[in-house]
């Protein structure tokens, strides 16, 4: 039974209760701003709550703030995020080693420390690596957290600061008047707003389109697997061999990677988290990465739906017109950056610009000339379903 909803608007209405919208809402609420988050399902239920949990994005304009904030997040939120510092990169080939070192060097360029590891050092730190490992990197920066626990922490902390969240509330339209968005229409009433934040992940482009704004996005489905728990390693943020992921504080190995499947946005009206036989290929790569755990059992798998812009970089920008709208779509890399991007969005809302970082590289204007058929030209398109493949459409 749905309780009756008062259609009371807010100073700031946020479209999307994923990690970006929730973080933005939390930053605004703790600054004393009256904020309302509208979420079509449950908070953090899509890719925000089912990703690899990585928090190592120092290449980004938001990267330094990400690194500064994560160690404080548990205390700031009042709820546990399971944030754990540091990362270890494992390389099984010279190519992989070069890639791991490149990541480390990007951090070094930002002032962070790292150490090269030979096989012996690697094995001391990660006893389940095998003789197939040639070396690795130890990053004294970066880290990882539990995505689901973190999105719930943002949501609860936002409420603790007086913000509101309406779940199971789908945004259906944006009311414009005088060059501004004045209200957000939903399946549970219309909510007035002074400023609107669109942080709707793969659907962000559709909401931009309602405002006559071009924001090219291609959604895709990606998969992960999780094993039963094994004894805790000193650093859980171990990755390599084309996998991202971590050992959780419970001890599970949780990893993803490999081919994605491009899909269409309308397909996502009824999101599903379907897996494919790709889970077997993931198992193979994980056993190659950590041969000492090859006997460990996979106990679940899932998929997440993410979006990408044409250059794979986020769009975090305040629109020129209507000028009271902020868009934030993280191009499939939103979880780790969430503490920082939430703060950036709150500043774009309150001050019209981000005070702590130059977000020029993330401006929407870079796609002004992106052609409408960019997905087709890039090959980033959904397959037409093969007639034979649709279960039940035969006979």
């Amino acid at each position, binding site marked *: 039974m749905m309780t009756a909803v008062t259609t009371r608007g807010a100073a700031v209405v946020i479209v999307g209760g994923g990690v970006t919208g929730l973080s933005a809402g939390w930053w605004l609420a703790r600054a004393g701003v009256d904020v309302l988050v509208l979420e079509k399902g449950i908070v953090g239920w899509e890719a925000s709550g089912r990703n690899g949990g990585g928090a190592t994005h120092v290449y980004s304009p938001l990267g330094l703030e990400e690194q500064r904030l994560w160690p404080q997040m548990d205390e700031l939120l009042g709820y546990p995020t399971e944030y754990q510092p540091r990362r270890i990169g494992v390389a099984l080939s010279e190519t992989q080693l070069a890639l791991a070192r490149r990541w480390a060097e990007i951090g070094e360029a930002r002032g962070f420390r790292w150490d090269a590891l030979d096989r012996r050092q690697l094995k001391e730190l990660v006893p389940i690596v095998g003789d197939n490992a040639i070396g690795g990197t130890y990053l004294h920066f970066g880290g990882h957290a539990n995505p689901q626990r973190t999105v719930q922490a943002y949501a609860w902390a936002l409420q603790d600061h007086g913000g509101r969240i309406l779940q199971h509330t789908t945004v259906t339209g944006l009311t414009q008047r005088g060059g501004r968005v004045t209200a957000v229409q939903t399946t549970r009433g219309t909510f007035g707003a002074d400023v609107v934040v669109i942080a709707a992940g793969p659907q962000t482009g559709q909401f931009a389109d309602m405002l006559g704004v071009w924001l090219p996005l291609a959604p895709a489905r990606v998969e992960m697997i999780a094993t039963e728990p094994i004894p805790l390693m000193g650093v859980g943020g171990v990755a390599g061999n084309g996998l991202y992921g971590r050992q959780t504080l419970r001890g599970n190995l949780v990893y993803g990677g490999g081919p994605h499947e491009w899909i269409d946005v309308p397909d996502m009206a009824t999101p599903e988290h379907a897996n494919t036989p790709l889970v077997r290929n993931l198992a193979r790569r994980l056993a190659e990465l950590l041969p000492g755990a090859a006997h460990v059992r996979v106990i679940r798998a899932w998929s997440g739906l993410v979006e990408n812009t044409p250059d794979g970089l986020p769009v975090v920008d305040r629109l020129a017109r209507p000028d009271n709208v902020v868009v934030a779509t993280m*191009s499939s890399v939103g979880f780790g950056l969430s503490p920082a991007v939430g703060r950036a969005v709150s500043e774009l809302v309150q001050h019209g610009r981000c005070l702590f970082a130059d977000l020029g590289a993330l401006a929407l204007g870079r796609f002004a000339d992106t052609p409408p058929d960019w997905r087709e030209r890039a090959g980033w398109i959904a397959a037409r379903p093969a007639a*034979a*493949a649709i279960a039940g459409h035969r006979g």
Partner: protein
Amino acid sequence: MRETDPRSIAGKAPTPERRVPLVVVGAGVAGVAAAIEAAEAGIEVLLVDEHPVDNDMMAMDVPLCFGQRMDGAVRNRTAMLARVVETNPGLTRAYEAGVDVQLGTYVWGAFVSGPTVRELPAPMLGLADDRRSWLVGYDRLVVAAGARDVMLGFPGWERAGTLGAAGATALLTRYRALSARRLVVLGSGALGLHTAALALEHGVEVMGVVEVGPHVRGDAEAATALAAHGVPFFTSHTVRAARGGTGEIESLVLAALDGAGAPVPGSEREIACDAVCLAVGLTPSVELLHLVGARLRFAGALGGWIPEVDASMRTSVPTVFAAGDCAGFHDGMLADPDIARAQGRVAGLAAAESLDAIRGGTTAARSPGTPGAREAASLARPLAADGVHAHWQTWLASLVAAGGWEVNVCQCEEVTRRELVETMPPRYLLWDSPQMRARSVATLAGDGPINQDQIKRLTRAGMGPCQGRRCREQVGLLLAQAAGTSIDRIPLPTFRPPVRPLPLNVLWPADEPAAMREDWVSWFGIPTQFSPHWEAGMAIDEPTAHARLIVSDE
């Protein structure tokens, strides 16, 4: 020709090792009947059954709650294979009918196309044995996966010897390998009486049948027969605790309940036993049906979530049929295997006919005695229309009253009842804050309808290696109670593949398409995605074929 992103799944979809017109999952009464019916209609049929399950899987209470009470014989795979054949005459009949029978084979996944899965060439199942996994494509699927135990905890139920009625029955009848000698049965309905009688028949001493209500629920004649064998009945009783040293159950402490269902102080009695069998209820095994996207509905009188089926046992996915206990379980099916058999025959025949229709042929004449579809559908109805969950809730309430809130609801993750309803983070986080203490299932219920998956991910109840088999129902019942709702109003918690816990080196494919290996990247392979923003034009990438970038029209 469309452009293809080399880093996407396009062109890398797996080829099943084999493609079969009809796969039947489960070689119980219903599955065997379906397979024989279809084979006799001229269809090529693969019948897959996971028994004999290997010892490691059994030790995790997968797929049934075996409670560590399998004897050493289950380690001998060859002997067990012979035994499950010997104890299931249906297998021989299926083999003689030309059915390809694969035993000791798990079905751990079902993969179908959908809105977000477009590249899969055809529906396929993931199969595995103890050594490897493989894929089998199908045109039609009959799921006859049976039912599994509903477990309810009490202090000490982590000890070896707590098993479920389905697990006990499998060990008694299929494996002939139950190591328990003195058994207490919880539940006096048809399931409890049936299990007690089976145990007696196999030389196991039944130390008592415990019933939370004031009367024996099952057939009076069956109860009388048990009593005649000296089986004591403890009505208006519940379990206080299981006791024992070194992790084994050595006794069970019962408490009498007063008229209001509260334990009577001083009424405890201790019964020496080495096993406790939960026989309060079974619930249909719908994991695979969920994975293929069949519409499920909550049917309280049929054990919980069941597939919607038409008169020919066809689910909402027209290529998939369901038969037997997994299509809905009620007490009448225990006494009369003909119900499941009839459902299996209807499903097998309907699957065969639908295959024939696409081949333009006609199915061989229906064998004499095949029930009509209408008849099978009516057989599937329970004798009594009462929901079973209210009874389970009564049992659980008595166990909470007698055993308290500091009892693990989830054994794998060691989550207590209290930690569940207070949505406490797991103990190993050592977390405490006033904010966290203020949150609970009750406050979450204020934010929206209760969702078991959401609370699972916060508390970890149901996230362990048994894949929620021991706690799924009791978690749902506790959440319903804590949120002031009923279990039928809580959405079905999802089942995720692999629906059997399989080692990485079993699940992995021995062979992969070259493109899978060559184009594999950890993320999308967009060269600018992780490039340092202060080095314009620098790209970081795994150095294989790049994704194509279309940013501007130049």
